[in-house]
């Protein structure tokens, strides 16, 4: 920028580096501004540096909602630190806004005294009007932001200047704006650009001119920090003291996809994935379709029903059929889930939950399909349920759902939700050999002369044999009509029907003998208050309970992963506390099942806003209950 050397030097003397234990940054802009990319790049760089991190992308349902409007604001919140991080953070320390709407939509998220980095070009009269600021009002000019530290940067102008000689058109130049912001944030937190430079080289392999342009703007952002004329702090967030080992960054949907592949590889089965595109589950399909070299067969069906029924066909043939959707799609699959449980064949049904009912809030998170998984079918139709609680746990949750499906010859629900599906965190991943063996043995023909094959004769787990087409002598018929015990022939006998209903229930109950006991995540094994959580509320509960314990409150945290059946000792665990609080992102679903099963007067804490709990909300409730 042509400043004399001594001037820059002077500034360096003024600037200081402040040490922080953890920082929350919220990137916000138009959904076309590349906000998700900026956020995920910073995430990888922070993770590679050794910080613990948790992220939460928050985007509108429309792919390109009207530019400049509040409805079109896309956000990416990330929380990184030199301490253990369990949530994407309640309020943010730094708010990066690409336009006026992004500021208006997110200002309430910013801590008092927090930093705003504002792209001034996004605060022109047109953008202010689109963000519905009153005529003549510009929040950057009217002192309304005086309790914050505001950095105004004309990102658009600097980006265009940096690329003046690039030969790119204005539109293409403007697409690099997010790289400027990323570079500037890298400067603020003293991070290397290497990871993002490598990423850009890979991303634009086929357009070298874009590699060069984006790297140039990324560096311009970084250098701007060095040369800016206002005194500005830099921050240092040291690596977190995490468990030794090798880590990677992982998103929930990606983890689920890898978990499904891992399970089928360990079982020696072909993974057949029948699905229909739906937010927020589609990324599992995208990930799986990249791994055909594992023999994975992905099938984008004509609808949700064909997605699941084709998976049933695949399982009948000896593959592991998996289908995935979100609430509305799961509703369509209901009848077929009933068929799978009558056929007693393995099937995994993934529900990446979103806000409901009906179309609901497609891009927002909610835990409101637990009762659907538990009861949402006709007849007596128990289905085991496994729910993951962090992005990386989706790997183990999906793996475990496959194990139960195969070992117990049953459809199994795997529940995730929009928050952990799109969220990411560091993962100390296992090696393939550390994973349990799920080796499957199909039924063999060892019938003696004159003996008939009994397709519904059960083993010690009450599972029936998996006799696949192609096995000579085991020809048999299955179907959705009630079956005679052992033979599997159609039966309308009243005694037999009652027996079969009870056998199917007993089989699911039996699973409790083959899953781990419930553990206490944090706190004492008995006391005044237990917080019982499930699914993606884990991070907020963990943070809240940890803080409350350090402040002397008698509170513990248990998180249930197996929701049907529950671990055998869950009742005992619950009864070891005076009070039980069940926070859920729904109107009270787990609490109904718990009250029903254990007759305890559990209290609920419910949030139904399409947003995760803040740890503060949970902590306040803890304090209220322990008063």
């Amino acid at each position, binding site marked *: 920028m042509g400043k004399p050397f001594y001037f820059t030097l002077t500034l360096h003397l003024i600037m200081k580096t402040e040490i922080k234990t953890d920082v929350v940054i919220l990137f916000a802009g138009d959904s076309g501004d590349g906000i998700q990319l900026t956020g995920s790049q910073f995430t990888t760089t922070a993770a590679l540096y050794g910080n613990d991190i948790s992220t939460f992308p928050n985007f509108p349902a429309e792919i390109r909602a009207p530019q400049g409007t509040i409805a079109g604001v896309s956000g990416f919140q990330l929380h990184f630190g030199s301490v253990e991080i369990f949530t994407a953070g309640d309020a943010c320390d730094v708010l990066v806004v690409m336009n006026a709407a992004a500021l208006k939509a997110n200002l309430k998220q910013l801590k008092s005294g927090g930093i705003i980095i504002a792209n001034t070009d996004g605060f022109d009269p047109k953008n202010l009007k689109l963000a519905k600021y009153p005529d003549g009002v510009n929040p950057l000019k009217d002192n309304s932001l005086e309790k914050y530290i505001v950095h105004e940067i004309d990102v658009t102008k600097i980006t265009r200047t940096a690329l003046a000689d690039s030969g790119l058109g204005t539109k293409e130049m403007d697409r690099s704006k997010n790289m400027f912001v990323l570079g500037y944030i890298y400067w603020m937190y003293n991070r290397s650009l290497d990871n993002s430079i490598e990423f850009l080289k890979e991303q634009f392999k086929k357009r070298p001119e874009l590699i060069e342009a984006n790297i140039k703007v990324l560096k311009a952002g970084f250098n701007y920090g060095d040369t800016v004329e206002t005194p500005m702090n830099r921050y240092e967030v040291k690596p977190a003291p995490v468990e030794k080992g090798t880590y990677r960054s992982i998103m929930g949907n990606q983890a689920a996809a890898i978990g499904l592949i891992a399970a089928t590889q360990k079982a020696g089965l072909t993974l*057949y994935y029948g699905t229909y595109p739906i937010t927020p589950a589609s990324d599992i399909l995208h990930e799986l379709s990249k791994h055909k*070299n594992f023999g994975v067969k992905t*099938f984008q069906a004509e609808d949700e029903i064909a997605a699941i029924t*084709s*998976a049933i066909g695949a399982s009948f043939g000896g593959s592991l059929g998996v289908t995935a959707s979100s609430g509305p799609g799961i509703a369509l699959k209901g009848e077929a889930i009933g068929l799978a449980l009558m056929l007693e064949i393995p099937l995994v049904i993934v529900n990446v939950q979103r806000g409901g009912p009906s179309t609901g809030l497609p891009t927002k998170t909610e835990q409101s399909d637990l009762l659907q998984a538990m009861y949402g079918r006709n007849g007596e139709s128990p289905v085991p349920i496994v729910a993951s609680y962090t992005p990386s746990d989706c*790997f183990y949750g999906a793996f475990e759902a496959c194990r139960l499906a195969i070992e117990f010859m049953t459809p199994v629900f795997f529940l995730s939700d929009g928050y952990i599906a799109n969220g990411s965190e560091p993962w100390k991943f296992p090696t393939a050999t550390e994973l349990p063996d799920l080796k499957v043995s199909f039924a063999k023909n060892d019938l003696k002369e004159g003996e008939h094959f009994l397709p519904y004769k059960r083993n010690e787990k009450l599972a029936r044999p998996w006799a696949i*087409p*192609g096995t000579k002598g085991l020809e048999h018929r299955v*179907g959705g009509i009630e079956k005679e015990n052992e033979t599997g*022939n159609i039966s309308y006998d009243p005694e037999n029907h009652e027996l079969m209903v009870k056998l199917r229930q007993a089989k699911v109950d039996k699973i409790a003998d083959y899953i781990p006991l419930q553990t206490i995540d944090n706190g004492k094994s008995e006391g005044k208050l237990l917080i019982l959580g499930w699914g993606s509320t884990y991070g907020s509960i963990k943070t809240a309970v940890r803080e409350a314990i350090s402040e002397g409150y008698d509170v513990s945290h248990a998180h249930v992963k197996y929701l049907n059946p529950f671990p055998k000792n869950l009742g005992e665990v619950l009864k070891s506390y005076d009070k039980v609080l069940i926070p859920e992102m729904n109107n009270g679903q787990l609490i109904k099942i718990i009250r029903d099963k254990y007759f305890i007067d559990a209290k609920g804490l419910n949030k139904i806003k399409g947003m995760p709990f803040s740890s503060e909300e949970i902590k306040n409730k803890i304090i209220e209950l322990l008063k």
Partner: protein
Amino acid sequence: MSTIETKLTAKDFVTDQEVRWCPGCGDYSILKQVQTVMPELGIPREQIVFISGIGCSSRFPYYMETFGMHSIHGRATAIASGLKATRPDLSVWIVTGDGDSLSIGGNHLIHLLRRNFNVNVLLFNNEIYGLTKGQYSPASPLGTVAKSTPMGSIDHPFNPLALCLGADSTFVARSMDRDPIHLREILKRANGHIGTSMVEIYQNCNVFNDGAFEVFTEKGTKKINTLMVEHGKPLVFGENSDKGIKLDGFKPKVVNLADVSANDLWIHDEKDQVKASILVRFFNTPADENPLPRPFGVFYTEDRFCYEDALNAQITEAIESKGKGDLDALIRGKNTWTV
């Protein structure tokens, strides 16, 4: 188990289950023909799978001594798709009715056809809902008086095979329960076709829609109202094979053989999609003015790649280009760091 292969007979395809269709139902004949044809196909029993949906016809798998699944309403086509995608080695037969495949399962049917899985579809068309005791179906002619339509049905019916051809079916044929020889021949042709073989079988429901097809199936009227098509042969029908079909542009016309040269008649070509689309539109009843006879036989066949082959080819290609999947590499991903 004896390792010596003995030749199977129709009896080997009969199960120990009591057949429970109404006495006189057309399904009995179809079951008999299928059981008769099976041994001639040379496929081991354990390699054969019958999959059905819901309806009278869908009881079929219970009566076939093969692998079988009696599934849920309308979904046999989708179940068979998943099975065939993962087990291309199996001989897969879908048994469905006009309600099952054209109404509740209509969507899966058209997608099965465009994907062209190598399976066989036997569509038992009786133009009525039998199992639910007599409501009109999407194949029932306009004005059908049934339990749910005392004043006559008001929805325009599907022409099933025109629908299938519209969905780019690669094998379209029609037969009937009352002509065992013809039905067996068509079943064999369906089995031989690589791709989805669509066979519509006119089937009499003697309880709820008796005689729906009698003008095509009964001795007295069959010859004048039906047209048996054979590849390479002229379209000839009539009491004494004295009538034929001539194409006037794209318009089919009934002519007396006495009045035209045999060379002027429409010669059936199974590979001609345009002509097949005219042929499946022969949908008159004798009550219509200048009715065209109802055709039976194989109307159209086409060689087109099957979905399962393309699916497996991509897997082979992926393994060739990237190497067989390495689970550790997958779990590790591209970027890692060590603490």
